[in-house]
């Protein structure tokens, strides 16, 4: 099903294209629903039931369960929608960055500051 145009490969840099959009539709649709506080609460109350409602596939279910951002991306997740998922757990962009790079949050934040020097 790789129908999207082949793009330049940039190491460590996912491009959310047609293939990812097809693969990740259910996951991203669930994350989009988290714009609503009621939906966030419903997810928190019964996570399994909420994921079932959106028809997540096994790879997406496992990634959600692990709260693992790289796995969520591999399962078709888009950064902008995943940010809404992360918000449920009170994770900010430095938590997300630290998790994906295998750094501590403090080290990740220090690297950002270093980039400004």
């Amino acid at each position, binding site marked *: 099903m790789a129908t999207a145009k082949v*793009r330049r490969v940039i190491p*460590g840099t996912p*491009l959310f*294209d047609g293939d990812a959009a097809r693969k990740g539709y259910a996951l991203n649709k669930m994350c989009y629903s988290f714009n609503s506080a009621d939906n966030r609460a419903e997810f928190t109350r019964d996570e399994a039931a909420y994921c079932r409602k959106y028809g997540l596939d096994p790879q997406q279910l496992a990634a959600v369960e692990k709260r693992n951002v790289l796995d969520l991306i591999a399962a078709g997740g888009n950064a902008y929608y995943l940010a809404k998922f992360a918000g449920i757990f009170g994770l900010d962009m430095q938590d*997300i*960055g630290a998790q994906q790079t295998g750094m501590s949050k403090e080290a990740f934040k220090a690297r*950002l500051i270093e980039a400004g020097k």
Partner: protein
Amino acid sequence: MAKIVGGIVTSHVPAIGRAIAGGLQQEAYWKPFFDGFAPVQQWLAEVKPDVAVVIYNDHGLNFFLDKMPTFAVGAAPQYSNADEGWGIPTLPAFPGDQDLSWHLIEELVAKEFDLTTCQEMLVDHAFTLPMKLLWPNAGEAWPVRTVPVCINTVQHPLPSARRCFKLGQAIGEAVASWDSDARVVVIGTGGLSHQLDGERAGFINKSFDLEFMDSLVNDPAWATRYSVEELIELTGTQGIELLMWVAARAALGGVDQVRKLHANYHIPISNTAAGLMLFENKD
């Protein structure tokens, strides 16, 4: 005819909303960012534009993957903000300018931009926070009417920098042909270099950002030499939001028509290199 009085380009991140809601503008982390806006606020208070055309990218508040327009233009009487998933307090609704919306739509489609038009449109932090940064004391009554122009940076293929430059030029020409005495400011929000996703998360490219900012003064079409993928390699997956800057700057006209009045650049706000520039159109 209407007149473009100038343009402002700035970064946007949700954390700015949290900082505003928490009154953190003068804390050490945020001060270098917020203080950069004072000269722009002063300029706006002097110039008093009537309308703002705001070129921004939606992050999954108004548009989902079920319908993903490349270019969307608002044509609503007003634009509301809403919860984007983090429960940050929302800002008051923004008045639209439907006359300019439909004039833009007519002119842009005539120039072969195949738009999506929106008579209902929620605007997210990329629209609302720059407005609050520019008019921090507006309260419930924004001093300008607005027309949102949204460019897709969510799902590839994205429009090229060259295409966004042309869109900006067409917006500038459309405003200049609008039968109105309105004074219009063009705002572009996004970037600069940052990357939220992947093992390269946290990527920032200061030297490219500074070169890009310089190019908007001396050679506004400079970034159009790069493909979208090249720009992402240089600026990060979300650094591509610099397309909004390219379009907004193109709307103002050529090098001779514009003078730069102010610029600020600070790393980091959240994971982002924050840029700000103010351009004034010469009479």
